[in-house]
């Protein structure tokens, strides 16, 4: 009887200890990556393992907020994390990421200087992040639906959405804005002819005033569901990130829906975004993290990533290797005109951050 109990406890103890035993064994030759879902080449991870013998563990997140909250809480166990460049200042200030030794990344010399310059706005001297993919904020239109309602509209201008009479005409086919104050507010400030990087928080009130009359014409504020809503014809004027328009188009194609989409970066200017890969300060496998970054930044590897994700990468040497349909799409690889409209918004201080959040709540709940 007593002996049995002892056995029971031994077994119980061993079972309870299992989770602690396993990771320490797994950490011997692995690298833990945390990034967006579907945001890497189809065979990149397998190729990496074959080439280096290091086992990549790829965890995904579905929202930037979820990832940020996790990284801010710390102790994540990740070695390489995909992070939005715009939010890097807060993360760097909080000490979430460690500085990167550029000398240890063989293909650093291939980096697009324009992209590096944009990333440096949020991360001085590109000290903490390796630029991965980049793009713009703009508007995806369902051309047929919009032309039917506004035949003469200049889609390069935000008048299509921000003028109340136009918005009212598009209301029934569906307008949506990104649920992201740091993308919409700077874009709206530039539309109003103001400084997109204004530090005067009273300027945000003008954006609230601008959006108030069109609020009832905006169907929703959303960052992901439009990928399904656009192919279904539920929305016709959709504020999106650049690559999403390609994803929506390919989803429509897969579903056999004939749809005529186009992506425009407003001529008054729009924020650019750069996603970086960074190494958390508490990363356990820093060596393997560098090995992964090094592998990923090879032109043919990063080009395969662009082929699959439909986003432009930051390596100039890789551009020629990217699929032609992607490389020549000005929505993905912007031409000189579009590039001149893009700018990297300056990081926000705490006051701006609060005021922007407040203004955004007012915009969303108003009307």
């Amino acid at each position, binding site marked *: 009887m007593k002996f049995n109990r002892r056995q029971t406890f031994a077994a119980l103890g061993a079972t309870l200890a299992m989770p602690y035993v396993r990771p320490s064994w797994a950490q011997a030759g692995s690298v833990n990556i945390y990034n967006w879902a579907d945001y890497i080449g189809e065979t990149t991870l397998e190729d990496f393992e074959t080439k280096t013998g290091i086992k990549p563990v790829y965890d995904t997140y579905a929202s930037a907020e979820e990832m940020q909250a996790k990284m801010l*809480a710390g102790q994540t166990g990740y070695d390489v994390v995909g992070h939005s460049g715009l939010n890097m200042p807060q993360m760097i200030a909080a000490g979430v990421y460690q500085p990167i030794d550029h000398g240890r990344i063989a293909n650093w010399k291939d980096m697009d200087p324009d992209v590096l310059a944009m990333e440096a706005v949020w991360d001085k001297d590109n000290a903490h992040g390796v630029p991965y993919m980049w793009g713009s904020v703009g508007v995806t239109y369902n051309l047929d639906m919009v032309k039917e309602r506004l035949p003469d509209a200049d889609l390069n201008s935000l008048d299509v959405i921000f003028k109340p009479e136009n918005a009212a005409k598009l209301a029934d086919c569906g307008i949506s804005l990104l649920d992201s104050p740091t993308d919409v507010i700077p874009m709206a400030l530039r539309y109003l002819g103001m400084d997109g990087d204004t530090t005067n928080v009273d300027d945000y009130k003008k954006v609230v005033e601008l959006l108030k009359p069109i609020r009832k014409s905006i169907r929703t504020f959303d960052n992901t*569901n439009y990928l399904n809503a656009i192919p279904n014809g539920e929305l016709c004027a959709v504020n999106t990130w650049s690559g999403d328009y390609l994803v929506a188009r390919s989803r429509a194609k897969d579903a056999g829906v004939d749809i005529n989409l186009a992506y425009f970066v407003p001529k008054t200017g729009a924020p650019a975004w750069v996603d970086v890969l960074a190494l958390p300060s508490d990363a356990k496998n820093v060596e393997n993290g560098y090995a992964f970054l090094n592998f990923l930044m090879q032109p043919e590897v990063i080009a395969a990533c662009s082929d699959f994700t439909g986003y432009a990468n930051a390596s100039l040497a890789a551009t020629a290797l990217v699929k032609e349909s992607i490389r020549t799409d000005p929505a993905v690889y912007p031409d000189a005109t579009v590039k001149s409209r893009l700018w990297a918004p300056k990081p926000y201080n705490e006051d701006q951050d609060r005021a922007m959040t407040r203004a955004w709540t007012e915009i969303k709940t108003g*009307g």
Partner: protein
Amino acid sequence: MPGSDLAPPSGPTDSPRQDGPREGPHEGPVARWFNRRGWSDLITGIPFFWLFFFFLIPFVIVVAMSFATRSPTSPPFSFGLDGGLLDFRSYARLFSDQLYIRALGISLWMAALSTVLCLLIGYPMALALTRLSPSVRTIMLMLVILPFWTSFLLRVYAWMGLMGTNSWFNRGLTALYNMVVPADWALRSIQMMNTNFAVVVVMVYSYLPFMVLPLYANLERLDMTLNEAAEDLGSRPWQVFRDVTLPLSIPGIIAGGLLVFIPVSGELVVPGLVGNPSNPMIGRVISDEFASARDWPMAATVAVALLVLLVGPMMAYSHFENRAQTRREEAP
């Protein structure tokens, strides 16, 4: 003799007054406790440990966080930044900023509406279930539980497909509507997605089983002879229901109501997917404060406020239940 029957069968059978260990010289107090009542203590202890570690400690952390100050650190809050250890500004904002009160109001209103609709639909269903033959009843009960076998999220997405402006369902409804109304009222489509209507429809659909099952459990126990007695005394069927069945089913109504009301008022997914962003529910506000605004103290404050608001009715219910229990025990 108390305790003697709990002694292990293998224990020594000599004088019970013996002060030394009962099971050989090596038995310490732990082993004695374990031999006497170890299993019963462990089994009753597990739920308490569970609640302690996975409810009480997290809740204490949330309450503590609600008195912290937002700061650019990791994690993004700290204590004692501006002198005092506790920061009450989040609680002040809870009352000074219209957003939170409004979102709480919207949430409670939507939850109340969904609960009443669930009750109106669920009560006849539960009552009908009790009047079926046992074999049919088993099948029908299975059908009530059946939706749980599909992911909740998937079912919400199915509703999004149904209510979308270009769905066959919406087109059919629009065609019907346009047939009935004069030509200049005709619509291209009926706006169902991103409205409060959609939120209530999906909530009622999702939470209906939580109303039906406790009601059924309650109604099934009722004594049918009471109905016959009431009819013998001249009650009409409606009066039997009003005077006998309904009062006896109040515990079931309350249990079902709480099971629907409490999760619905904190619901995040449904309003996020089908709701109208200009009428935010409190779950969304908490999530936004936590994730977008990175204001963990404020998110914690709203969560504490919501919990306090919901625990009130819960306490009232258990008080009511206890009183009813005592009354039942005193009755015979």
